[in-house]
């Protein structure tokens, strides 16, 4: 499109907000005084609003952590943009948000061809199936000919196709845009099987009239590494988001929690001293203050605390750590060291 027409349209549309574009996202965020974070419109445990209208959830805590790292501990400087599954990647590509923390599956296509970078995995998920108990199904391999409810525009839809094709089974998909409508369709009996990420299945089961009448089948048919995403082309911003994530994991590994982070500043453990910025200039090297991780941990705690608070066994969701435990406890979370 002709640049002058673009400029004209642009000026005509500088309706209420005009943000000058530049390569350095960190500077833009600092100028705007807030981090624009894309989150789910509503996924229990990952992004939802409490009675006071405050956002909460595992993904939301990542937004807060990044904001705390940038704004010296102020985790309130976040503008949350709720995005549907189809909206999320265009919103990031069009610079409507600075970081996307919306249970987005890391795939090769998304990482390489869309101009996006995944910074890591903040939740290891996998796709599962839920069926009514009275169908007497005990394995996903018995689902041939079933009607399956699935959300559109997700990897879930693609995995479903692959799984049934690979196992030579027939199925009728019922494809629906919003997850809550998918759940409703399942409850009304429009389909025999509900499929989504296992974390979502547990939340969905809570909503059903008789949770005991539904079983979650043992098969996990896909790898769903969910993680925050940033735009390609800004290495510094990529590093900041990536190392906030690694910092949270390292903090759990080193036993630094929201409560003891002040005392830990006096620790003799060199790993802790580097994490908390007592030694070295790791924060300044990525454009932040040296005590960046102190700010982050004071705001949201370490990864384990985030997990327990939002989705862990003490929450209604009651999800076990499982794959999401640290590598030292038999899980998959493993962060490179800060040194």
């Amino acid at each position, binding site marked *: 499109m002709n640049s002058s027409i673009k400029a004209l*349209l642009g000026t005509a549309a500088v309706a209420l907000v005009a943000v000058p574009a530049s390569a350095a996202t960190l500077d833009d965020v600092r100028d705007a005084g807030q981090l624009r974070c894309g989150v789910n419109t509503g996924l*229990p445990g990952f992004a939802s609003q409490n*009675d006071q209208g405050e956002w909460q959830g595992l993904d939301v805590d990542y937004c807060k952590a990044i904001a705390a790292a940038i704004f010296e501990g102020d985790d309130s400087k976040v503008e949350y*943009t709720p995005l549907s599954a189809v*909206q999320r990647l*265009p919103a990031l590509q069009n610079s*409507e948000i600075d970081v996307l923390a919306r249970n987005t599956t890391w795939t090769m296509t998304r990482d390489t061809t869309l101009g996006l970078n995944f910074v890591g995995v903040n939740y290891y998920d996998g796709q599962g199936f839920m069926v009514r108990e009275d169908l007497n199904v005990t394995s996903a391999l018995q689902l041939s000919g079933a009607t399956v409810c699935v959300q559109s525009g997700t990897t879930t839809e693609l995995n479903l196709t692959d799984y049934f094709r690979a196992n030579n089974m027939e199925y009728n998909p019922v494809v629906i845009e919003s997850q809550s409508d998918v759940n409703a369709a399942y409850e009304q009996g429009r389909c025999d099987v509900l499929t989504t990420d296992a974390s979502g299945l547990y939340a969905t089961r809570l909503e059903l009239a008789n949770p005991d009448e539904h079983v979650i089948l043992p098969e996990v048919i896909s790898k769903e590494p969910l993680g925050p995403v940033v735009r390609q082309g800004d290495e510094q911003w990529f590093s900041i988001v990536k190392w906030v994530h690694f910092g949270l994991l390292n903090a759990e590994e080193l036993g630094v929690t929201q409560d003891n982070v002040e005392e830990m500043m006096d620790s003799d453990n060199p790993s802790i001293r580097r994490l908390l910025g007592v030694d070295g200039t790791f924060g300044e090297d990525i454009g932040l203050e040296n005590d960046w991780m102190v700010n982050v941990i004071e705001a949201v705690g370490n990864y384990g605390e985030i997990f327990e608070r939002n989705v862990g066994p003490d*929450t209604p969701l009651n999800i076990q750590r499982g794959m999401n435990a640290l590598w030292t406890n038999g899980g998959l979370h493993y962060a490179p060291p800060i040194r």
Partner: protein
Amino acid sequence: MEEHVSAYVAREQKKPLPPPPTEAGALAVLRKNLFATPLDSIVTILLGLFSVWAAWRIFDWSVLSAVFTGSSREACLAGDGAPVGACWAFVRAKFGLFTYGLYPVDERWRVDLTMLLLVAFTLPFAIPRVPFKGLNLFLLVGAFPLIALVLLTGGQFRIGGGWVAFMFILAAFVSTMLAAGNLNAPPGWLRVATWLAAIAVLVLIVSNILPSGQFRLLVFSFTTLSLVAFLLAVASIAVSAFASVSSSGKHASVLMHVLLPPLYVAALLVLLAGDLGLQPVPTSRWGGLLVTLVVALTGIAASLPLGILLALGRRSHLPAIRLLSVVFIEFWRGVPLITVLFMSAFMIPLLLPSGVSFNQLLRALLGVALFSAAYMAEVVRGGLQAVPKGQYEGAQALGLGYWQMMRLVVMPQAIKLVIPGIVNTFIGLFKDTSLVYIIGLADLLGAVRRGFSDPNWITPTTPASGLVFAGFVFWLFCFGMSRYSIFMERRLETGHKN
């Protein structure tokens, strides 16, 4: 000669006997309407039983076994055996969210005040007996949008000089037209005023194409050329004002008339850009009923005048105007609103230079307003066609011009005829506002649905309770509009009943 009538002959008509009990009274009505034949009786009994059963179930669900208090999902979970009905505790806990969205709690009085003002301005306007309709109209249509805009957003926008110039150019054109309405105004001066405004438009377009340095003037950031455009517009207004004053004896009132548009624009800019001590609240934090009302009322307020203009345009004898109106109406009527909203969410960002974002709410407002204007245009056109040709000819025979004929003779009859259609469009529009959920805005329904994903409130009955509540609120508003339209129809007696 007097006629002899025997005493036994009745002199007056006998009073009729009361109808037999099988033909009158409640029993008879029941028998005739409900139990006339055996089949009727069976149907009546079956449906009666069903109604009682359904009413009881609804009453039981929404009152008897409903949960009214509680602070978390535990309250609404079924205990041992007994199923739980509606979870009103959820609606109660989230009531603030459903009404205001994420609007900061300390600032919610601003929303309350805005709604209060709206009611205060609308009610007297809607009741025919209350006097001062002219002042009321000005307050409702002129002052209220300004007040609401500033109260809700908090002002302090960063407005570019290009926009300042654009607004003043618009004002200059309107001023020129108003000045031209005065037949004694010297045409030479008016021509100068028009040319000045036209040159200002050109300069503004050039200033958007040529990159140039910006500097701040007051709170606005101007480029040199946009400042020139602004000054030209001001000059045009000054010339119009001079032209109308020089030709008329009543200086003060004529001057006020011509200067009203620029003064309004100036007030708008000052209020928008100025710091009135209100904390700015970005529209991304608006939600719930607030967004529903903002979108619906803007759509309603914009669609009626736009629709009337489009309807007139479609019936115009000027080919260009007719073609433009037809294209506009058929385009917007042919595209689903959901597509328009999707386009605004995905296409507009692609067309804009990167980093420039177009306010989400404004996109929705524009989409909804243009969309409903097209529907409104067809409704109004229906009314125009129902006005007999004699009315047009009569008005022309009286020597009325086009606008006078439309305003004084045709429109009052046409609008009166299509009140049901207009209100139909309004109600449809009000309910369509829920579609803004698509572009990430949480209207009432969106806010309710977002509440479902709060892990603190996930229960089997939460979604039903929330949706019933949202449905009830929508019904209240739509039913209110419908009753008012029936009242207006009766008052205007449009039905040709006699």
